[in-house]
C-alpha cells in the first residue's frame, strides 16, 4: 500500500476530535490530544479554517467544526425542490417565448426531465416529466455536460449516437461545443436530436455556484431558429429565466 499523507491524516484526526460532541477546543488541547507540536497543530487548523471545515470562536479563540462540513453532507438539491422553485419563472418563460419549457437534471447517462410547461397555444400536449433526453445532442444535455464534470464524463465516455445528419459525434467537435457553451453561457440544438426541432438552454446554479440543472425552451425550428439564426430574444429570455431560478435558490430555505 502506498504511504499515506501525514498532514491529511492529522487533519482527519483533528476533525474527529472536534466532532466528539458539542465542543470547542483550544489550540493546546488539540495539540496535546494528538501529540503534536503547537506550531504544527496551528498550521493544520489554519488550513482547515481557511476551507471552512473549522471555525474559530472570536471571543475565546477556541476551535469548532465549520459550517462547510454540514453543507458537504447536505449539498444534494432535491429535484422536486428545484421544480417548486422554478415554477413561477418557467411559467413566465413559456408565456413570453410562446414555446414549451423544460427543466432537466443529470440522471445516469442522460438528462431527466423534471419539469415541463406546455406551449401556450391551446393545442393538445402531453406532459413529458420523467422522460430522458440524450446528453450530447440536446441543448439541456450540452449545458449539463459543459458545467457539471460528472455529466461531462458521462457524455465523453458514453456512446454519442447520430440521431440526425447534424448530430456532432466526434469528441473534438463535442468538446468544441462545450467550450463555446461555457464561453457564452448557453447552448443550442438545431435539429441535432429531432428533425424539425430546435432548443436553447442555460445553466441553473445553486448558492455555491454548483450547476444543479438546466432550463430551456424547445420548439419548431422555423420559429426558434428562423432563417438559420437563433432568435436573440429567445436566448435572452432563457438566460434570464435561468438566472431568476438561480437567484431564488441562493435565497436560502423556503
Amino acid at each position, binding site marked *: 500500500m502506498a504511504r499515506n499523507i501525514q498532514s491529511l491524516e492529522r487533519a482527519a484526526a483533528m476533525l474527529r476530535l472536534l466532532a466528539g460532541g458539542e465542543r470547542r477546543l483550544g489550540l493546546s488541547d488539540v495539540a496535546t490530544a494528538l501529540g503534536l507540536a503547537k506550531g504544527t497543530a496551528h498550521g493544520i487548523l489554519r488550513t482547515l479554517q481557511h476551507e471552512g471545515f473549522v471555525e474559530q470562536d472570536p471571543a475565546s479563540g477556541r476551535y469548532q467544526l465549520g459550517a462547510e462540513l454540514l453543507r458537504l453532507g447536505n449539498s444534494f438539491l*432535491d*429535484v*422536486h*425542490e428545484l*421544480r*417548486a422553485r422554478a*415554477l*413561477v*419563472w418557467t*411559467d*413566465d*418563460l*413559456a*408565456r*413570453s417565448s410562446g414555446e414549451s419549457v423544460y427543466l432537466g437534471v443529470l440522471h445516469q447517462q442522460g438528462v431527466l426531465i423534471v*419539469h*415541463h*410547461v*406546455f406551449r*401556450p397555444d*391551446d393545442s393538445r*400536449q402531453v*406532459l413529458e*416529466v420523467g422522460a430522458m433526453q440524450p446528453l450530447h445532442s440536446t441543448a439541456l444535455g450540452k449545458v449539463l455536460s459543459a458545467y457539471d464534470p460528472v455529466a461531462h464524463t458521462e457524455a465523453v465516455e458514453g456512446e454519442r449516437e447520430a440521431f440526425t445528419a447534424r448530430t456532432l459525434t466526434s469528441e473534438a467537435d463535442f468538446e468544441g461545443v462545450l467550450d463555446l457553451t461555457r464561453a457564452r453561457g448557453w447552448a443550442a440544438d438545431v435539429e441535432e436530436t429531432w428533425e424539425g426541432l430546435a432548443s436553447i438552454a442555460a445553466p441553473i446554479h445553486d448558492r455555491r455556484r454548483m450547476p444543479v440543472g438546466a432550463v430551456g425552451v424547445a420548439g419548431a425550428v422555423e420559429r426558434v431558429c428562423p432563417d438559420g439564426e437563433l432568435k436573440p*430574444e429567445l436566448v*435572452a*429570455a432563457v438566460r*434570464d*429565466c435561468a438566472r*431568476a431560478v438561480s437567484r431564488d435558490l441562493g435565497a436560502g*430555505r*423556503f
Partner: protein
Amino acid sequence: MTDAHTTGPFIAAIDQGTTSSRCIVFDKDGRIVSVDQKEHEQIFPKPGWVEHDATEIWENVQEVVAGAVVKAGISAADVKAIGITNQRETTMMWDRTTGEPVHNAIVWQDTRTDALCRELGRNVGQDRFRRETGLPLASYFAGPKIRWLLDNVEGLRERAESGDILFGTMDSWVIWNLTGGVNGGVHVTDVTNASRTLLMNLHRMAWDEKILSSMDIPAAVLPEIKSSAEVYGKAASGVLKGVPVASALGDQQAALFGQTCFSEGEAKSTYGTGTFMLMNTGEEPVNSYNGLLTTVGYQIGDQKPVYALEGSIAVTGSLVQWMRDQMGMIKTAAEIETLASSVDDNGGAYFVPAFSGLFAPYWRSDARGVIAGLTRYVTKAHIARAVLEATAWQTREITDAMTKDSGVELTALKVDGGMTSNNLLMQTLSDFLDAPVVRPMVAETTCLGAAYAAGLAVGFWSSTDELRANWRRAAEWTPRMDADVRDREYKNWLKAVERSMGWLDENTGEE
C-alpha cells in the same frame, strides 16, 4: 424581472395568507414582474388552538409590499391599484383609537369554539343559520370567534358596545391600516369575506340582525360590507402612498377569479395550507344537501353578486408542513415527493388528517387525525405516500358532492396553489378522480385574482372577457389507474375516515 416586459403600468396584489404574506406586482398581460414573501409565526397555545400576531402580520405586509416594489424597480406612480386577498375567517378585534389588537387573531383552523357552536345550534343543530348564511354552524367561521373574544377578553364587551372596538377578518385589518389606521383608516370588508362570518344574509348582502342577536354580537363592531372590486380608499403611507386600494376577496374566491371561472359551472381547486374547491353557480345561491357551503364568489362594483358552491378541506399542505416541522421526516415540503416516490404504493396505510375535525363533506368537529392500516411493513415512505393520497381522496369526496349538488359532471379539474408543483400528487389526483387535472400558467392565481379585481375597478382591464383571454394551460395530467384499484382504494379510504370520527366526547368537547 425576466425581460423587457416590465414597462408599466402595474397592479400590486397583497395576499395575506395563513402561513405567509406576499406581494406580487403584475403587468397588463397578467405576468408576474416581482414577488416578495414573508412567513409569520404560527402560535399553538393549546391543542386545537391556532393564533396569529396581527401586529407582526401588518409589519410583514408593509415589508413585502416594499420588497416587491423595490425588486420590480418601480414607484407608486407606476402602480394603478392595490388588490387585497386574505386567509378567510381568521378573526381579530382591535381598538379604533390606539390601533392595538385586543388579542391574537384566532385562525380559521382553530377549534376552540366547538362547544359554543353546539350551544348556539340550540335544538335545531348545525343548520340553524344555513338558510340565511349558506353555512353550517362550525368553529371554522368568524362569528363564533367574535363571540369567544367578547366573552373571554376582560372588559371587551363593554368597550365593544360603546363603539371603541372594531372587528375584522384580515382584509379589514390590512385595508384599515393601509388607508391610515387611527388616522382615518376605512373599516370595510367585501361580500366574499362577509359571507364567511355566519353573520351576513346571503340574499340581502347585509348583516343579519336576528343572527347578531342570537350570537350576542353588537353591530357596532362590524365593518361596512362593500363589493369585491371598487375603490375603498387610498394608501396613506409607505412606498405605495396615494395608490387606490381597489379590491378585496377571500383567498379562495380570489383564486376562482384568477382562474377566470366567470361562467356558471366553472370550478377550480386550490392546494395550499388547506384545499378549497369552488364552483361558480351564477347569480343564484344554490343550496347544498351534500355537505358543501353556499358562499359569495365575487361582486364587481354595482353588478349583481355571483355565488359559488364550496368544498372546504382543512388540512392538505399543512399536513406536509406537519411532516416537515413536527415529524422531521423531510427538510422541505417538496421533499415529500422524493420520499413518497421511493415506494410504489401506500403499503396499506391511510392518513386521515382531521386535525381540526373534518370539514366538507362531513362537518364533524368530534373527529381527530388517524393513520389506519399500519403493519410492521409500513415505512415512512408509505406514510409520505398516504399524506399525498389524503389530499387526493379528500378532493374526490368534494367532487362527488359537487356533482350531486350542482348536477354538473366533472370533465376536468382546474388546479392551482403551492402543492401543484408536486407532480406525483397531481398524477394521483387525476387517477383518483378519473378525470384530467389542469394547471394554468400562473400558479399564483390568488394574487392574480386580487390584481384582476383591482384592475377592473380602476379600468386597467376593461372586462372579464379580456382577462379570460390571458388564461393558458401550463400542464395537464390524465388518469392512468385501473378502475378496480381505484374503487378498492376509495373504500379503504372511507373506512379510515369512519375511524377518525367520534374521537372527542361530543358532550364536553374535551381533547
